[in-house]
């Protein structure tokens, strides 16, 4: 398997910015396109994706694979995804560790799974089938959740770590989702990050959320909050400079606002790099004196 490219900091490709992106290059390193938004036969969205793909790497990020449902895999969907991937040659293809419907109904939400051996086996088998069709590793993202199952036998982080080993897939670690779920379920967000296998995390997500008083809601309609920036810094320290994407789906602001968020993420990565260099330099000096 080829090494995952280090893309830098990107943003989601959203219709709000289509006109501006056709006129100027965004100050971002790459784009993430929601797969389903481009599973069409023609028209402007595909034209825009063609346009941005000429100058920047693209990743496909799905919301409807429903890897955890007990319905059969949607082979038509998979075929369309594979066709899209052949056309746009994304750096990788991701979706979510969740289910999105049952009884052949699609609920269009990212629904939580119980973390059990039964589910681990089920999801790993389906990941294998998806990877066969796509001819590449699938990347799965942790979702925000608002309830947990009392019969789970492991934590979400343990489940995700076990899954990537068993199914040979990779992780899109959504730092905001870790923060939101940690608040909603009372677990330690940093301990979750610590559990992630470093060599499997190929991408990070950052986004804003809403505080509903009793719980946090993953709304993607606000700037990344200071606490999530702190958790991002912690994540970069632990996992290295992993390609990162700023998500913004509701009340989408002007492109310039997203570019500011990208700059902030870059700055944090640069600061962590500088810390590491200082630490390594100090260690080298220490070793020289010791010798």
């Amino acid at each position, binding site marked *: 398997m080829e090494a995952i490219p280090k893309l830098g900091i990107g943003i989601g490709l959203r219709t709000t910015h289509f006109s501006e992106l056709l006129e100027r290059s965004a100050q971002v390193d790459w784009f993430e396109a929601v797969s389903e*938004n481009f599973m069409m036969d*023609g*028209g402007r969205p595909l034209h825009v994706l063609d346009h941005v793909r000429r100058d920047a790497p693209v990743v496909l990020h799905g919301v409807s694979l429903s890897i955890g449902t007990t319905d059969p895999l949607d082979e038509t969907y998979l075929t369309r995804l594979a066709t899209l991937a052949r056309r746009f040659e994304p750096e990788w293809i991701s979706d979510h560790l969740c289910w999105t419907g049952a009884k052949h109904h699609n609920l269009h*939400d990212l629904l939580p799974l*119980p973390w059990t051996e039964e589910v681990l086996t089920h999801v790993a088998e389906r990941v294998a089938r998806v990877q066969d069709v796509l001819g590449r590793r699938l990347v799965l993202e942790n979702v925000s959740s608002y309830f947990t199952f*009392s019969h789970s036998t492991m934590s979400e982080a343990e489940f995700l770590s076990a899954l990537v080993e068993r199914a040979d897939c990779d992780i899109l670690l959504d730092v905001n989702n870790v923060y939101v779920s940690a608040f909603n379920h009372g677990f330690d967000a940093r301990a979750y990050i610590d559990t992630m296998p470093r060599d499997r995390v190929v991408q990070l997500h950052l986004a804003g959320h809403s505080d509903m008083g009793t719980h946090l809601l993953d709304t993607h309609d606000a700037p990344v909050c200071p606490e999530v920036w702190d958790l991002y810094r912690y994540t970069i320290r632990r996992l290295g400079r992993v390609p990162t994407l700023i998500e913004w789906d509701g009340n989408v602001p002007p492109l310039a606002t997203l570019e500011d968020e990208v700059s902030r993420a870059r700055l944090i990565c640069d600061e962590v790099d500088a810390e590491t260099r200082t630490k390594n330099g100090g260690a080298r000096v220490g070793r020289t004196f010791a010798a």
Partner: protein
Amino acid sequence: MSAAPSLRELQHQLEGLFSLGGAADCEARLKDAESSLPVGGDGRLSPAQRIGIYTDMIFARIRDAIAEDFSATVTALGDDAWESLIARYVEAHPTDHPDLRLAGRHLPAYLRATETPQIADLASFEWALIDSFTAADAPLLSGDTLRALAPEAWPALELRSVPSLRLLCATSPIDQTRRKLLDGEPTDLETVGPFTLRVWRRELRVFHKRVPPFEHEALQHIARGTTFADLCEWIAEGDTGEDASEVAVRLLQGWLADELLMAAP
């Protein structure tokens, strides 16, 4: 303690609860179901309230996605009627497609059976605009191709419309009505039709235009696929009082200018 349900059992039960978003008795039904599910609660939120977060979000997401595609229809109905309509629509047509953009694709037909023809026509028009926007691209038949055509080849010339063409017949002036509704101007939905329209995409932009019933019918032939000879024959049957081939050429010129015709494969 009873054994935990299988994943399949669990998902089937939760799917039913997550689909209750528009139901008046949603809260009570979630409360009734919570003890039978292995879902945890705490001092902040009960299991039913936690499940309800999803139920509310799912309904709102689908409702808002459909509303985005039917802005004028929403305005014509009003917010309360729309909310109630979508609850009934989603119950009749649970979303079964991975693409949320298509959640409203059955709405025009649903309205045809449940609302006035004017509302159904307006929704059909709005859906045609959406549908045309993402229809397949196609190579266009050009004037140069036709000019280079030998006279004896004209009868067998295949005529096909671009995939983005949608033809509508409405009981009211839906194009005007939509514009007024979106601009916040007063409008009524009185029956004064029929109005025949075409919707199509040129490059990346969607256009619409009222056309006479005669052209509308001619385009229906083109949409099904026909030849120049068959088009002329159909025109001749209509007894327009003009030479059929001259009428056909005039129609073709207009369609070529508007990029309505597809090149032969």
